[in-house]
């Protein structure tokens, strides 16, 4: 049994007749989606996230009252009319919670996305270039890393005061990208020494394409993980800033709910729902994002994916 010899050049068969187009990018998206969905934990996370998003979108329809509608009995306990009670200003807590989801999810996703994009752009080019350019980036990133996050956030927020949600997103992005950039840079450095990257150089690829078509897809799980991490951090930072009263306290979000609850000493008056409900929502939203991350691992590791099929 010897190995069959390959056909020689002379043996090139008749011109290949049927030439189909290459696989469409939509198939790739579908493949990725089904990969994430095939993981049990990720499925739970996706369902939780979907519920939050639906509640946020349809808040005007679901919520029994308006978010800023006052005039109910003040600081009431839960009742049939107000399931979670009312605030010290006489607003319905459940309605506020539903409307507040809009802000939290919006800030989380937008700030998470923006800081991930910055982290990817800077981290990948930083990991691929060598020499003086890398040193400059290194200095800037280190600068952002050594300054303590919360004080920096507070200073920037105080400086940009009155900007509302947009300001909070800017603050979260400025303070949140550096860590992700460093993680992605080290992964890029380890990938750039792999043979397939050298092979891409031999294929005549430009550096830009090597970084974003060869290296980047191999870090999908890291990037998506970074996005969910950044989104979680953004949700927490938003709640934190508003809780400290640095945001626009007239906006209804989970953070301002906590701020007002703290201001009215809700715990002392026994209104635990005022603190507990937004707190639990923040925790659950963060949990759902973390659960989705489990499924993301399968994307950049095809072997892991096959393992889940059983």
């Amino acid at each position, binding site marked *: 049994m010897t190995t069959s010899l*390959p056909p020689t050049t002379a043996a090139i068969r008749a011109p290949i007749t049927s030439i189909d187009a290459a696989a469409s990018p939509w198939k790739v998206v579908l493949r990725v989606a089904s990969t994430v969905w095939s993981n049990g934990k990720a499925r739970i996370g996706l369902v939780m996230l979907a519920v939050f998003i639906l509640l946020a979108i349809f808040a005007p329809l679901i919520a029994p009252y308006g978010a800023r509608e006052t005039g109910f009995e003040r600081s009431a306990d839960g009742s049939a009319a107000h399931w979670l009670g009312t605030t010290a200003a006489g607003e319905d807590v459940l309605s506020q919670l539903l409307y507040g989801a809009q802000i939290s999810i919006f800030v989380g996703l937008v700030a998470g996305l923006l800081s991930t994009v910055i982290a990817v752009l800077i981290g990948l080019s930083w990991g691929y270039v060598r020499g003086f350019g890398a040193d400059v980036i290194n200095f800037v990133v280190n600068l952002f890393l050594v300054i303590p996050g919360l004080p920096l956030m507070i200073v920037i927020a105080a400086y940009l005061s009155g900007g509302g949600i947009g300001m909070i997103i800017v603050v979260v992005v400025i303070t949140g990208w550096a860590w992700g950039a460093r993680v992605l840079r080290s992964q890029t450095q380890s990938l750039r020494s792999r*043979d397939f990257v050298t092979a891409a150089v*031999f*294929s*005549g690829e430009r550096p830009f394409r090597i970084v974003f078509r060869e290296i980047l897809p191999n870090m999908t799980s890291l990037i998506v993980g970074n996005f969910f991490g950044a989104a979680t951090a953004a949700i927490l930072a938003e709640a934190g800033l508003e809780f400290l009263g640095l945001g626009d306290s007239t906006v209804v979000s989970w953070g301002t709910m906590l701020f007002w609850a703290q201001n009215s000493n809700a715990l002392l008056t026994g209104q635990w729902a005022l603190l507990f409900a937004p707190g639990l929502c923040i925790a659950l939203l963060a949990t759902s994002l973390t659960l989705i991350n489990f499924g993301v691992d399968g994307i950049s590791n095809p072997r892991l994916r096959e393992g889940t099929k059983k």
Partner: protein
Amino acid sequence: MTPSPFVQTPPAANSTLLEVHDLSVHYGYGEAATKAVQNVSFRLAHGEFVGLVGESGSGKSTLGFALTGLSKPPAHIEKGRILFGGKDIASLDAEQLREQRHGGIAMVLQSGMNALNPVRSIRNHFVDIFRAHGHVERSRWTARATELIGKVELTPTVLDRFPGELSGGMRQRVSIALALSLEPELMVFDEPTTALDVLVQHAVMNTIIELQKSENFTAILISHDLGIVLESAQRVMVMHEGRIVEDAPARQILTNPQADYTRMLLSHYADPRAEVVELPGFADRQQRRAEGAARTEAATHTPTVSPRTRRTDQHAMIVENVSKVYPAPRRGEAPVRAVDNVSFTLEPGAALALVGASGSGKSTIAKLITAVEKPTSGSIRFGDLDVGTLNRRHFRKLHRDVQMVFQDPYSALNPLHTVEYALTRPVVNFTGLTGTEARRRVLELLDIVGLSPVEEFAAKLPHQLSGGQRQRVVIARALASDPQVIIADEPVSMLDVSLRAGVLALLEDLREQWGVSLLYITHDLLSARVVTDNIMVLNGGAVVETGNTAAVLQNPQDDYTIRLLDAIPNPRKDVA
């Protein structure tokens, strides 16, 4: 016991150490299960040294893991029994199995050198085992560890060093010593030398053979290399697709192999020093040359079918007095001279072998020629390109003509891109073809390297291909730009023996058909003999010997060349 000439003593029951009876190991369950080991039965007597040979995927490692009770899910013993000293291993629970390891079965892994904990000293590795089993008194720990480390021919100072400070060969020796520390009756060596350098491989293998004699343990040597096994084992079991196809004394396997598969494996071994070297798919080189000349004469009347006729404007790669010095790895050490004043010319259409053990600088030369690294001094010219000082922006100019085939087909392809993508990129970048034209070319390339049906292969992802198929894709990619020079860096060292000949024949064929010149980098002198005309032997970055391949190998002048030749396992050495 008085031996009686009349009664044929059957292998006495008490001399059997291990008995495997109708063993099957599956990955997964039911219909979809991968049947890695199927209905395997054999016996091992005390003190035997048995080799287990097979190619990747033959189930040999799975069998080794099953014997040592180390099978990991989804692998599980479907049926059959493994009796070790009368006890069925499969029925033991984790704790019993752990106790069993003392005086029982030990295993040395291929990656055993990476099995050491990098933050613990070698001494601590021994202490961990002594403590876990309590079979050595605390006062004797150092003495025992010193004794063990001596058995694997290391000095006691090694005990206070950390794994990162030791070479691969030393680490593998340490892991053998660790396995010995439990005084096992059975040692399973799973490819113990595969990841090591040729010369080191030879030395470690000798240590194993010596140890087996002096310690008198029973050993199973699992390897893909029939040559190594035949040199060391008394009995050889050949495994193919989960079954043992042959089980016979080593000498008999060599002189009178029964199974077709064994014969096929044996046919891939030859002595590179021989007058005439023939491998499956390769007639002898001289002979082929003669035939080839005849063929070309006969073919002058018929127009060539090949669309790519030989080029007229071919250039030689001229390397002159090139050195490459890397900065010192640690402060206080001397800088590393990877390449030391090397000069050679690669003529158009020629095949040159660059041979040496690891660290001899042969891969660095490949990097220099392809402008991936810049030489510290000297010049490299290809046509009117000065490769030594080539700017990144002009890489395309060079890589249009100089392409590379990588050593490890498993890392040379991006795991997330289909074969089609990998091949389309160089086609688009170098030939300017687009759309269906480019795709036609890609499919043509796949056809050239013998991957058909082409469309099916084009749509595959690398993990769906075998090692040999991947290497063909890598070769196809190197051909996409229609290059003049191909640099092949150990293109077959990661492949099974039976696939090697195919890939080598493909390279050889392409070279002859397309007039491509080949720089073949390897430590394997046999393959160098069959695919190249000239050879350059490197040691420590410098050229120690150069000349016609056959002449150099038959009549080596330099000591280092002789050592390299001696390190080649050659099963027929003592038969011939």
